[in-house]
């Protein structure tokens, strides 16, 4: 009985060679994760540890050779599950050539993205090879990281992609359902190209790309805006805190000296 459970608990391990280094990883691991374990750096844009891989930016392409050594092909490492005997090259001339072309194509969508320009410099890509579709206003490569973060992690479901082809863009549903946004700014932080810009006013929080305009809650102690009211409302349903604390910004919660009157931070 115990032997059975042991074999069930054991995951099948497969051997894979990445840049002449061999590693044993559980079956189903992606090549990118296997490379990360070996401290091999593969550039990524649309990859985030908290989300399942999507494989939309294609910057992480690698050259894969099967165990017979007969077949070699290029594929995105973030979505490629390892199998026995694969041999992978992450910096071969062929990989560099493909990566360069991908970066050049992405630059036509996001010509002013700093991350992409740095990658272009590293791989010798010509930033102006293709005419820019976008003149740098949107800088979005449509990797959908923001959309997936909003829908799958935060659960606000405030944004999605609309239209097709050249006109595809990230907007709030039908550009009208703006009230779903809670102003958590996670989309801004995960965006690899820095395409989303938020404006923080005195009493409002704006994201122009999807027409969001939220009211900010002001701290009862220092009178500074600290979080959108909808964000606080969402949290109130999850966490039980004193009412007094919901009106205070984190700085005032921790430093009672600015408040003047000390308080007890007891839930």
């Amino acid at each position: 009985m115990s032997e059975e459970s042991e074999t069930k608990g054991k995951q099948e391990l497969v051997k894979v060679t990445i840049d002449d280094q061999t590693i044993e990883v559980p079956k189903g691991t992606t090549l990118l994760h296997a490379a990360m374990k070996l401290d091999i750096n593969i550039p990524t844009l649309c990859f985030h540890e908290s989300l399942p891989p999507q494989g939309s930016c294609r910057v992480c392409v690698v050259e894969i050779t099967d165990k017979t050594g007969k077949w070699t092909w290029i594929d995105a490492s973030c979505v490629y599950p390892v199998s026995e005997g694969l041999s992978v090259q992450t910096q071969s001339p062929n990989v560099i050539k493909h990566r360069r072309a991908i970066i050049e194509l992405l630059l036509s969508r996001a010509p002013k993205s700093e991350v992409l320009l740095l990658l272009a410099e590293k791989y010798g890509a010509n930033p102006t090879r293709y005419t820019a579709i976008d003149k740098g206003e949107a800088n979005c490569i449509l990797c959908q990281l923001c959309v997936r973060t909003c829908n799958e992690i935060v659960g606000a479901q405030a944004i999605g992609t609309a239209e097709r082809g050249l006109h595809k863009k990230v907007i709030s549903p039908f550009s009208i359902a703006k009230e779903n946004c809670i102003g958590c700014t996670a989309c801004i932080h995960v965006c690899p190209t820095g395409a989303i810009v938020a404006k923080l006013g005195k009493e409002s929080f704006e994201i122009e790309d999807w027409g969001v305009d939220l009211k900010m809650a002001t701290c009862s102690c220092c009178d500074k805006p600290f979080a959108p009211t909808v964000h606080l409302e969402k949290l109130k349903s999850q966490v039980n805190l004193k009412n007094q604390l919901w009106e205070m910004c984190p700085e005032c919660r921790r430093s009672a000296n600015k408040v003047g009157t000390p308080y007890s931070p007891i839930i």
Partner: protein
Amino acid sequence: MPKALSFNQEKCTGCRACEAACSFKHHQEFNPVKSNIHVSIYTEEASFVPLTCIQCTVPLCKEVCPTGALQKSMINGAPVINVIEHKCVGCKMCMLACPFGCITVLETGRAHKCDLCGGEPECVIACNTGALSFKSTEEGALQKKRSVVDKFHGHQEEAI
């Protein structure tokens, strides 16, 4: 017994060396604003209270985190809640849920909090008066008992 960062209010002089040490350890600059430990100064009462993450048994920050970027572990015999940076999306849930305001979201979009410096807190090393200490909770409890007894003893003497 597990270890914990403990603090003796009578010994604190409000020099804020702990703040400088903390920000230097984590951000390589002496900037109290970026520090994870904050000394509250009550000028009229002349009392000083440093406050940092107390590594709650039931951490609200960990509860609200949608990505599981906050993980509880043991470091050098002390329970600690760590931020796994590459998992964080910067949604600020933890920042707004912490009743002590002891977790912040940096400009890089990553949550940042006291991690006990991997088991050897820099603030304790920098504290000149010994107000901050990193010791087992058993020892801390014993000291507390002793201080209460001392206080009662003082009152008794006054009464006599």
